[in-house]
């Protein structure tokens, strides 16, 4: 298991995978967009705005998927102390945060024409917002340490705590929402998904997931490069110091000898 942590092994495994994943991402999202924008029927209630759902639902899925991924990485780093797990969690966080924010923005853009308001304190919206806060907290924590590895470790612990907390938050927000919004005009659960809408939805979800894996591979590489740079800089610093000291010693000797010979 630990041999995957070596950069060379990671590269050997992902190098042939990357072009395929990138190609799959492009094809899936392109066909998904075609079906979402041209070849899908209108919803009898929502009209054209149902097209926003083809972005909103995949973004929501990715937001949750990334968080689960981070929590699994956190558990792996806790149990097996696997170095790559920390790096994966760290690389996932910005992607998950972006998708969660996109989910909230597209949901807002759908809510304005449909509900007549940009934001409601609906249980699902509120939970998604809290998920975004958890992402931001993770990113802030991971970047707050001078030693990045310590940051990653603290982040893994936080991701795990957050994952245990997510169901509790979800439950309490649901409970709070039913208490405060009895029989509201706003109904999140629209009509059940028509088979003709399932195809673009599935294509977009798969496309977004492939996009995530492409980005994950790239960001893990970036992280590995940066670790290598830090290691090199550290060794370079020691070299420089010894060089300078040697130089100083030489010049001192030279000066001394020159003086002595005068």
């Amino acid at each position, binding site marked *: 298991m630990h041999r995957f942590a070596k950069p060379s092994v990671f*590269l050997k495994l992902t190098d042939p995978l990357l072009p395929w994943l990138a190609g799959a991402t492009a094809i899936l999202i392109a066909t998904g967009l075609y079906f979402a924008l041209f070849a899908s029927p209108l919803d009898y209630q929502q009209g*054209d*705005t149902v*097209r926003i759902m083809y*972005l909103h639902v995949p973004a929501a899925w990715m937001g949750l998927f990334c968080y689960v991924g981070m929590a699994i990485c956190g558990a792996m780093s806790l149990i097996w102390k696997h170095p790559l797990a920390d790096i994966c969690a760290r690389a996932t966080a910005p992607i998950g945060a972006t998708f969660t924010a996109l989910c909230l923005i597209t949901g807002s853009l759908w809510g304005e024409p449909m509900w007549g308001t940009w934001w409601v304190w609906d249980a699902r919206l509120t939970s998604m917002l809290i998920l975004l806060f958890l992402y931001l907290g993770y990113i802030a924590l991971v970047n707050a340490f001078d030693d990045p590895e310590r940051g990653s470790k603290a982040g893994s612990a936080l991701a795990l705590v957050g994952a245990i907390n997510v169901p509790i938050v979800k439950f309490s927000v649901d409970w709070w929402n039913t208490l405060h919004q009895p029989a509201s005009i706003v109904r999140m659960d629209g009509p059940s998904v028509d088979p003709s809408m399932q195809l673009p939805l599935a294509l977009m979800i798969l496309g977004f997931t492939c996009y995530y894996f492409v980005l994950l591979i*790239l960001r893990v590489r970036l992280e590995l490069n940066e670790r290598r740079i830090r290691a090199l800089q550290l060794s370079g610093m020691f070299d420089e110091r010894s060089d300078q000291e040697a130089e100083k010693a030489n010049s001192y000797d030279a000066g001394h000898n020159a003086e002595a010979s005068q």
Partner: protein
Amino acid sequence: MSEFFSMGGYGSYIWGSYAITAIAMIALLLATLRSLRNSRIERDQLETVLQARRPRRTKKAPKAS
């Protein structure tokens, strides 16, 4: 054609959300690619500098891209 762009009167909302999603996803990809390239350049520079400085201790570094 204009009917397609107006999207039944909801065009600004629909195209707005598609545009924001596209911008965010492409920006994230480009930012990652750029910093990956920069990190690769910096790492290679450091490696050549350090190897030139101490030729005796050339250890084959793990080639990462």
